């Protein structure tokens, strides 16, 4: 029962990921995050190659969006291949900010 509901949820997540549409522009989920202060700080901590790859994907997506086009299906980012590359750095930045705010309250 538990595994069936888990498979169902995973299937819904996969469907939702494709319905969102950013994978058709060659973007990963972390590419679409709105750049607030936390995300900006996390981006500064990215390794150079990860940052350059992100810039390439963004530039390609902006160009496709301008031309009202999407990538061929074989180039769409798959749900299984999507890497949350920014998440560890973002969590670290948020943790540090909260800790700083706690200290400032004292």
């Amino acid at each position: 029962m538990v595994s069936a509901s888990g498979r169902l949820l995973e299937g819904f997540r996969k469907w939702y990921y494709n319905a969102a549409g950013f994978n058709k522009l060659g973007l990963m989920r972390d590419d679409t995050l709105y750049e607030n202060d936390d995300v900006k700080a996390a981006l500064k901590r990215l390794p150079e190659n990860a940052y350059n790859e992100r810039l390439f994907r963004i530039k390609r997506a902006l160009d496709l969006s301008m031309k009202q086009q999407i990538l061929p299906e074989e180039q769409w980012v798959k749900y299984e291949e999507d890497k949350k590359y920014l998440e560890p750095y973002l969590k670290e930045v948020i943790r540090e900010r909260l800790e700083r705010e706690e200290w400032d309250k004292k």
Partner: protein
Amino acid sequence: INNSYHWPTKPIRHLCLMKLWISTTHLLSFLQTITGIFLAMHYSPDISLAFSSVVHITRDVQYGWLIRNMHANGASLFFMCIYLHIGRGIYYGSYLYKETWNTGITLLLLTMATAFVGYVLPWGQMSFWGATVITNLLSAIPYVGDTLVQWIWGGFSVDNATLTRFFTFHFLLPFTIMGLTMMHLLFLHETGSNNPTGLNSNTDKIPFHPYFSYKDLLGLILNTSLPTDPSHYSSLTYCETPTTLHQPTLYPPHHMLNQNDTSYSPMQSYDQSQTNQEEYSLYNSPFSYYFKYLPYMHQNNEQPQFRPLTQILFWSLIANLLVLNMNRSATSCKIHSSSSDQYPLFFYFSKFYQSLYLLQVHSKT
């Protein structure tokens, strides 16, 4: 890198219809000011002269009919462009630029106020009763409501004092709007514009000329051709009480409940189905708070255009607004049955709470 350095250049993806609305709005505001100044040269803000001065403008002044109709229809076109501009802002998450968004909300309220006081000036039946109904809404405020309404009226009913001060406000507010528009653009240039992907486009920009200069020229051509289209000056439908009846009666006739003014579209539908002012004011507050607090309800980093649930909510809101407008401009002259207006209105007001719920739940997925 300071983002304001980039403002002379814009991302090429702005070359789409979305940006046409606001350049059209700017040109329309200029047209409204010019036509308004020419109207003010011949208009008299006195209850015994106002109506006949508008007739004089329409009949006797050289091209007065054109100036008057451009001003009246231009106001409707102005609001249509603004609603499209706001809809674009909601769909693509432009409300995340909080200062720009908040000045925009203030601009919307000022524009609605300007349109309202301007509608009173011809001093027709619609003018008088519209002024009476809308100003009476303030009486819903506890304790000071009635006093406030009489203070605004300048007397114990909508009369000459009200007309003269409304003329003053109608002349003054557009210049306030112009100043606030400059603030709106100033805040926008701090961040740079949004784009359909919601991505940071600082690495990929193009110069203003020739791309946007030519595109704004297109807006100018459309903007000057649409208000001069003679099909906009046809006689009113049989459902409307024309403003040509300038002797106000004691009570508003029932057939006046239908009108074709786009300024306050969903609210007027509600107005026709409710008689309780306190209820109306209470339910009206989520409408204004929805737009004002939209940036603060967005609790995660995800872009709304890549979230299917948010898209469904947005398009159901648009469909709901269209239903409300359809109910208002229906060809039947009968008084609207309460259910045909109240169900769409309930759905409309519940959007506020739906958004809160969806935005909070969605952030965890």
